[in-house]
């Protein structure tokens, strides 16, 4: 595990920004971090990187304790903050030179290539760049840093669709190069498209963990029956969840192959049936629709 947290907590007085958060990130995967504003995603990342000291619990990155070995943690990490702000008096080239000079793992030639791929004009002064251009510049710095762990906090915010696609491609390339990526985002489609594993956070806690592979196997079946629902047959017990309404409408979910299930459904007196992939949105909504 490249990242491991155990009951990690950050409190401000009575308010817990991070409340007993425990999770594990395997090396070499793209790990999605989901949750609405205030769920604790950024606090978790800031505690891991040593900006904030945990109130209790522990966290390690690349085997180093995030509270006592922050320098070693950061030596193994490249971090894109949620709102990356760079030195306004410098131009893009000077910013890339600065970070390449600050840490040897930041490869200046790679940064130039990333900036080119994102269509960024590095000759422009940061103060005269749009928010999206500044985001691209920060991404060039972070993605050019050759470290085992890359942490991206909302990396595609403020970007145009072309740049978004390019960033997602760069994230996949980072993973192909053996790096681990923690990808925090509000854009569920991007997370579903890119990540291998996701956690959903709410009120500073991890409330759900989900493998994207399992998610892709998952289907939701909306059926409308003429008569009463006879219940889930024993052969599907534990593999199919069903919620029946009073009007003969029923919603079922399964992670299993659909073929045997469809055979059973064909025996029911159906008025209407609709089958759809569960999708990350549906999983997310289970935890946050009412929030």
């Amino acid at each position, binding site marked *: 595990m490249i990242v491991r947290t155990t009951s990690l907590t950050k409190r401000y007085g009575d308010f817990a920004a991070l409340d007993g958060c425990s999770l594990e990130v395997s090396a070499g995967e793209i790990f999605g971090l989901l949750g609405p504003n205030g769920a604790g995603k950024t606090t978790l990342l800031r505690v891991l990187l*040593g900006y904030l000291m945990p109130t209790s619990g522990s966290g390690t990155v690349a085997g180093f304790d995030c509270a006592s070995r922050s320098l070693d943690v*950061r*030596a193994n990490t490249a971090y894109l903050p949620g709102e*990356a*702000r760079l030195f306004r008096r410098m131009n893009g080239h000077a910013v890339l030179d*600065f970070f390449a000079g*600050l840490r040897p793992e930041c490869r200046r030639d790679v940064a130039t290539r990333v900036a080119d791929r994102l269509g960024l004009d590095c000759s422009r002064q940061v103060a005269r760049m749009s928010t999206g251009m500044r985001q691209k510049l920060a991404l060039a710095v972070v993605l050019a840093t050759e470290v085992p762990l890359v942490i991206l906090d909302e990396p595609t915010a403020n970007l145009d669709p072309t740049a978004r696609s390019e960033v997602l491609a760069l994230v996949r390339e980072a993973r192909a190069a053996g790096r681990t990526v923690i990808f925090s985002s509000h854009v569920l489609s991007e997370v579903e498209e890119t990540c291998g594993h996701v956690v959903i956070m709410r009120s500073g806690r991890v409330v759900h963990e989900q493998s994207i592979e399992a998610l892709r196997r998952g289907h939701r079946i909306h059926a409308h029956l003429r008569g009463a629902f006879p219940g889930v047959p024993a052969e599907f017990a534990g593999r199919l969840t069903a919620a029946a309404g009073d009007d003969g409408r029923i919603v079922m979910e399964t992670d299993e192959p659909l073929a045997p299930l469809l055979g059973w459904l064909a025996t029911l007196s159906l008025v209407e049936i609709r089958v759809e992939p569960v999708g990350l949105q549906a999983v997310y909504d289970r935890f946050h629709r009412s929030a």
Partner: protein
Amino acid sequence: MDMSDTNAIAAGRGAIWSAAVWRKTWGDQRILLLSFAALWTVFPWLYLWLSAQIPMPAFQNVLLQVIPEDWQKLSGVPFSEVATYAGRVALAFVDPVVVLAATVWGITRGSDAVSGQLERGTMEMLLAAPVRRTAVFLTQALATTAAAALLCGVLLASVWSVVTFGPWAGKVEPWRFIPAAANVFGLMVCMGGITACVSAIDSYRWRTVGIMCGFYVTTLLAKLVGRLSGSLGWVGYLSVFNAYEPQRLVGGGPEAWRLLGQYDGILLGIGVAAYILGAVIFSRRDLPAPL
């Protein structure tokens, strides 16, 4: 990348110095440095040219016979010493142009150290790199102090040139003003250190500047109260300006150097202690996300 590679890199990152931060700080303070250098180049020439418009006998007449003797308390030295060529040149060092510029330098650069960068959000990307907070803080402090020394060198060079080639050429030895310029340097380090310490606690630059403006006014008033009130004379010792008396340092001889050692011992001592305290505070505090 092998994790052990980056761990090895991290192992060499214990320094409290960063060349990249050093270069960046010089870039950040470049405009202010050039502006103050220009001001302190022109000011002594302008000041002495204007002073020379009043002939020495007339000046002595006003100072020694018209102004009440009690007012000597404010000058810090007997009027008989002020009414000399060296004394009149020395008044340039207590002119608001010099005192305010030295204070503004300390407050401006000191407030940028932490709260300025937190407010702008640029500290976030900087500290994502494996660089010690102490290194960021102390490297900036060194660059600011070096620039202060440079400015005092400019001031001294300008005074030296006007004393050598100006309206009172040959009437006073230019080396007499070395201790006075060194006293200005002490004030700059003191104000810079105190401001950097406040900045290390704070998260908003405007508030840091406000606190320091209040400190400046308070400490100036404390000096005046201490000077003017017999019973409240001890209040003067609470003021850092009690150790800023360049007009007392132009007499030449060992006494001037002894006094300088005393004054700059206090000013540099407070400044360096404040920088060290600020570094400790900054290295231990939580850093909030940029607003």
